């Protein structure tokens, strides 16, 4: 058991050491060999994590507790530096270490030749350490340490190419918006401590189970926790940092903004499910925010032209799904989607990075096209990812997404409305993802052949893509069936059944199968729309039958990796739509003008306030300080005058007195001896007279 405790602590320790090594020695010593340290440390962590996970899978009812020492004790407040591995942490550990390792490997190829190579890996390792602390912590305070740490690394990595003003602005934006969420999180932790007397999970959840939290307090605490999640996981209204975060290198986007950091919010909600279940109002808020975010972000993604922006909005949208799941009580479905999303979104981002690399840093999809011939490996893996995210049976995304939507329907009430939003968002997701695939890889080449020679990425970049593709293919079906009762859910159920009763659902024909078929149809509808918009040629469009057969052709070409070839990509229909519905198009293209709104009504007032305070400081505060100085000078002037006039005056006056006196007496000195003799004679007479008269 002790060995296991040590192993658990070693998991975040190795990336920490890697960060330290590369950070201190990177510039001089490791330089372009920095990846050995970085990838090696994460690799070791992955191996250790697998060992730990196997142990937890063997005994899921007994989480591993590994306390290092008591960190803070102040009166009744105690916080331990302690880690815990239960089924929830084990699942998170699996894909954090797994995807983390693959991204580190990929980054070796992607960041090759960059002058800040060693710095990149330092930050990436630092991020891994923070994320692992976040996931493994056994109390809210230590989780918050990891929470802040990943926020910091996000800032450092987004602004990695800091000489680019857009990048450093984006980094600042990410950190500041995140911070707003963190304020809410902190207040939640205070409230939890105040109510339950402790901040470690086991104690708090036990207390909650025994009724220490009233509904009101639970609602307040969970709402505040959710504010933290809104900031960290980019939900409406604090999502604005995520699209800008695409300024960072693509491995960063893949790891932090798809697979790990943004899922920290979901993890936190799932971890706190005991509290959330006590507050139905919050659950509704969570589901509402999730559903609204899902459809809102998906709508923006429909018209974006930068490949990474589409994926960014897609991430925001998918995170909305995860919160929708939590909001309707299907926490394990939400976590399941977190895992499958890590696989296919990570793959999509890494693949996009591969495309960008091949196109020599071109990110605008309007300048791509026909790449399936040039970079087939990337194309194939991205095709698998696209099928997964669209939710097409039997890929990973289908299982998790469908489960969420089914649970929403089963929860009843207003959740049915959220289901409608979720379905619309699913349609949009399918549409814009296939649009991305078609625009990037199919059709004619819209770039200048003479300047750009797309080449396939090296195997250090391709291998992670292939591994993730396999996971996107089988990751859902292996652990997720039957829905709500698969290996995944039963494993996770061990973590919380002390406190929350949950009945696994049996699979019924109605409504489960019906909903499954419906969501598959919706996914296909999205595909069909994308096809008819961009790929169907005029003959096919002439008849409905033609369109169906054309779509089928394209679908097969996607599944069997385009052996048939699709050589023309039509932009006219899309442009026609854009002009016909110009208002909608412009609104979506400009992201609903949310950034402009925030700038006008939040940023500018704050900057005005900042200016006002600066003026206040300059005039009043400095005025007071200067005033003291002026007063001191005034006083010293007066003091000097007094000194000159009276003190020196007295001294001089005394001297004057002496001089005046001596002035009189010096007249006695005439130098004429006869005068002296005269005085002598007079003196003799006087004494004789006295002698004669008085004596």
């Amino acid at each position, binding site marked *: 058991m002790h060995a296991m405790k040590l192993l658990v602590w070693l998991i975040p320790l190795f990336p920490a050491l890697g960060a330290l090594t590369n950070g201190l020695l990177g510039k001089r010593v490791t330089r372009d060999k920095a990846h050995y340290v970085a990838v090696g440390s994460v690799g070791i962590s992955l191996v250790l994590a697998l060992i730990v996970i196997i142990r937890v899978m063997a005994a899921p009812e007994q989480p591993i507790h590994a306390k290092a020492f008591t960190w803070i004790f102040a009166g009744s407040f105690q916080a331990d530096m302690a880690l815990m591995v239960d089924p929830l942490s084990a699942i998170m550990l699996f894909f954090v270490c797994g995807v983390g390792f693959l991204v580190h490997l990929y980054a070796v190829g992607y960041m090759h030749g960059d002058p800040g190579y060693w710095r990149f890996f330092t930050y990436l390792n630092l991020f891994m350490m923070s994320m692992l602390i976040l996931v493994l912590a056994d109390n809210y305070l230590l989780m918050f340490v990891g929470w802040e740490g990943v926020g910091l690394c996000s800032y450092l990595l987004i602004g990695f190419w800091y000489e680019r003003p857009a990048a450093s602005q984006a980094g600042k934006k990410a950190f500041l918006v995140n911070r707003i969420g963190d304020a809410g999180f902190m207040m939640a932790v205070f409230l939890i401590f105040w109510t339950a007397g402790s901040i470690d999970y086991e104690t708090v959840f036990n207390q909650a189970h025994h009724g220490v939290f009233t509904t009101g307090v639970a609602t307040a605490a969970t709402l505040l926790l959710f504010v933290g999640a809104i900031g960290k996981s980019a939900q409406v209204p604090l999502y604005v940092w995520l699209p800008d975060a695409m300024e960072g290198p693509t491995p960063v986007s893949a790891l932090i903004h798809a697979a790990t950091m943004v899922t920290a919010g979901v993890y936190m909600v799932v971890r706190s499910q005991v509290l959330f279940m006590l507050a139905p109002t919050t659950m509704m808020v969570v589901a509402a925010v999730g559903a609204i975010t899902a459809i809102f972000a998906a709508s923006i993604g429909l018209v974006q032209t930068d490949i990474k922006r589409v994926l960014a909005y897609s991430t925001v949208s998918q995170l909305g799904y995860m919160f929708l799941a939590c909001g309707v009580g299907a926490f394990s479905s939400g976590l399941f989607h977190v895992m499958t999303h890590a696989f296919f979104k990570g793959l999509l981002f890494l693949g996009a990075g591969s495309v960008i690399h091949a196109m020599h840093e071109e990110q605008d999809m309007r300048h791509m096209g026909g790449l399936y011939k040039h970079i087939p490996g990337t194309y194939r893996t991205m095709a698998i990812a696209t099928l997964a995210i669209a939710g097409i049976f039997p890929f990973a995304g289908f299982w998790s997404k469908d489960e969420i939507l089914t649970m929403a329907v089963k929860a009843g009430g207003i959740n049915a409305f959220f289901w409608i939003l979720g379905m619309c968002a699913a349609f949009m997701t399918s549409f814009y993802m296939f649009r991305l695939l078609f625009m990037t890889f199919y059709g004619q080449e819209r770039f200048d052949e003479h300047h750009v020679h797309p080449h396939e990425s090296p195997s250090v970049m391709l291998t992670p893509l292939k591994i993730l593709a396999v996971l996107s293919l089988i990751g859902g079906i292996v652990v997720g069936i039957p829905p709500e009762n698969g290996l995944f859910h039963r494993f996770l159920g061990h973590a919380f059944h002390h406190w929350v009763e949950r009945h696994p659902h049996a699979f019924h024909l109605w409504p489960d199968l019906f909903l499954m078929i419906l969501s598959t149809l919706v996914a296909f509808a999205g595909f069909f729309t994308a096809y008819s918009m961009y790929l169907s040629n005029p003959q096919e469009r002439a008849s409905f039958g033609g369109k169906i057969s054309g779509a089928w052709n394209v679908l097969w070409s996607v599944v069997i990796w385009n052996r048939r070839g699709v050589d023309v990509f039509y932009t006219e229909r899309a442009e026609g739509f854009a002009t016909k519905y110009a208002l909608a198009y412009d609104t979506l293209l400009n992201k609903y003008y949310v950034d402009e709104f925030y700038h006008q009504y939040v940023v500018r007032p704050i900057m005005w306030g900042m200016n006002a305070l600066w003026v206040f400081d300059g005039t009043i505060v400095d005025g007071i300080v200067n005033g003291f100085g002026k007063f001191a000078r005034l006083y010293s002037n007066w003091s000097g005058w007094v000194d000159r006039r009276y003190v020196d005056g007295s001294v001089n006056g005394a001297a004057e007195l002496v001089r005046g006196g001596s002035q009189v007496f010096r*007249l006695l*000195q*005439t*130098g*004429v*001896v*006869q005068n002296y003799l005269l005085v002598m*004679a007079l003196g003799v007479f006087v004494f004789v007279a006295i002698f004669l008269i008085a004596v």
Partner: protein
Amino acid sequence: MIPLSFYLTFGVLLFVIGVIGVLTRRNVVIVLMSIELILNAVNLTLISFSHYLNDLRGQVFALFVIAVAASEAAVGLALVIALYRGKHTFNLDDVNLLKW
């Protein structure tokens, strides 16, 4: 007999004239002569008392005074000569280096 008071008065008069001469005369030599006059006045007083008291000691003392007067006059005249050599004047008003 001539009364003693006549001689004493005469002696006082001579003394006073001598003192006035010392105090007021500008010429150094006159001052020295006035000093001799003072000394002689004292001599006269001494002799008078010696005669009227039939004591010889008065006359002896007068002999001493004459001898001292002579040597003092010699020294005084040497000083005058030194003064003249330095300042080329016999005017006492000009010998006022001690003046403030």
